[in-house]
């Protein structure tokens, strides 16, 4: 078996987030601003709900269905952006995007840096970026 290659993708920290996601289904449906993103190629679905007050993320949650990478990435993202200002959230989103496209990590991304290994599995990059794309869409709407 050559499953050890998978360790680059499914690191312990990623699997911990995937199994016990943070901010998962924690807000009621009518709270805050919500956006639903769907990946038509694989069926991954995320509903991201944000409460923004005075230019800051006050509360947030995600709901949806997808693989371990998707769940871990969404969970890490919600941890990162909670209580951040919109400017900080935008900067983090750019940093995450730079990491996934160019491989530049940034300490500000914290545990989300563990997702850099996904770059070795090009067909799975969308799993890691879907939640961030949902976030970008919400910020544009805001």
């Amino acid at each position, binding site marked *: *078996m*050559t*499953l050890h*290659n*998978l360790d680059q*993708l*499914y690191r*312990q920290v990623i*699997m*911990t987030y*995937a*199994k016990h996601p943070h901010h998962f289904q924690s807000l009621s449906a009518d709270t805050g601003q919500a956006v639903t993103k769907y990946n038509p*190629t*694989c*069926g*991954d*679905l995320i509903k991201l709900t944000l409460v923004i007050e005075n230019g800051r993320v006050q509360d947030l949650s995600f709901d949806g*269905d*997808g*693989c*371990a*990478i*998707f769940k871990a990435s969404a969970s890490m993202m919600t941890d990162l952006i909670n209580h951040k200002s919109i400017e900080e959230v935008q900067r983090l989103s750019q940093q995450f995007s730079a990491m996934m496209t160019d491989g530049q990590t940034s300490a500000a991304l914290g545990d989300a840096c563990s997702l850099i290994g996904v770059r070795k*599995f090009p*067909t*799975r990059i969308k*799993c890691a970026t879907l939640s961030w794309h949902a976030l970008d869409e919400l910020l544009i709407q805001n």
Partner: protein
Amino acid sequence: MQSRESYSMKECRADFPILNEKINGQPLIYLDSAATAQKPAKVLAKVQDYYQHQNANVHRGVYTLSQAATDLYEGARNQVQAFINAADWTEVLFTRGTTESINWVSTAYGQQHLQAGDEILVSYLEHHSNLVPWQVLAQQTGAKLRYVELDEAGRLDLVDLRHKLNPSTKIVALTHVSNVTGVINPIAQITSWAHQVGAVVVVDGAQAAPHLPVDVQALDADFYAFSGHKLMGPTGIGVLYGKKALLEEIPPVQYGGEMIEYVGLDEATFQPLPWRFEAGTPNIAGAIGLGAAIEYLRSIGMAQIAANEAQLTTYALKKLGAIEGLQIYGPTNGQNRTGVITFNLADIHPHDVATALDQEGIEVRAGHHCAQPLMRYLGVTATVRVSLYLYNTAAEIDRLVASLVAIKEYFVDDFT
């Protein structure tokens, strides 16, 4: 008792050069033939040979080379006619694939024949390509789209089907074989019921034509669509079979070169069947490659292919079903089904399963398989799908099963 390897067509594997490839350092085990089939060397050589020795446009030139290309292209049409036992060669239209074939029927036939209040009957088994064209037609004409329910094993509920057939039913659009669960629908039975109420039957044969003997006259199908690439031919070529009387009354879908007779300043007259549907330079190499694929399949025999696949499917269902925590969707016995097997493993997401199998060189499909209504009907968002063809072996199934067991340990036991 036969040996396990005789379940497969092991000796034909040498005909498929791609099977020597390595994927992630492992020998390729290709289990996604429902998406597209691998191509035998004879098909590749035939396409190459055409471009190298006979390349010219068809139905154009007075010169020798054009005639040679035309003979090959029209020869392929005759091969398709024999393959599906069409009564007449003019009933075979070349298209880009199943999707285009069905779209031609829904736009050309559907828009001409449907009106508000009419009904189109489909089922929950349909691939999006045999669903979305009918949704749009229903929206455009005011017709109603109705769904045949499935029974507990995931087969068409024939009682429900009969109940929903009525004089308002104008089109019955059904898949011959499900691309998700592999179930074979009793098309001949259904067409006889549908014809009693005056409906025409459109059959999506994309998953059937590569795996079963298909006789459009015995099925009494009004339209039958399939793709070349799923039966070992090139991509971008497909077939729409239609009964001559129906094809003759419907207008062309596209207009331009090749399909015309006389072109005046304000109007033109069109070619007879089948050419009046084939506007522009057709996919000549694709048709020739499809002809070569049909020749290859017929040299083995479709009944033989179906029988071997049924044996391997039964073996795979038994071995997969024995994995604890693995749930198979659809029938779990090998009867009246092809080698398309869809399942989920424990609580591991299908994408994670597919990525892990890929590391073992095992290529499977994960996702919704272009059948979102069926996924919702089954109560899942995604599944893993394994699909077999004549080059697969019991040894490959054994590797798949061993890998799935290891993957379960990796995800479930290592990360708790």
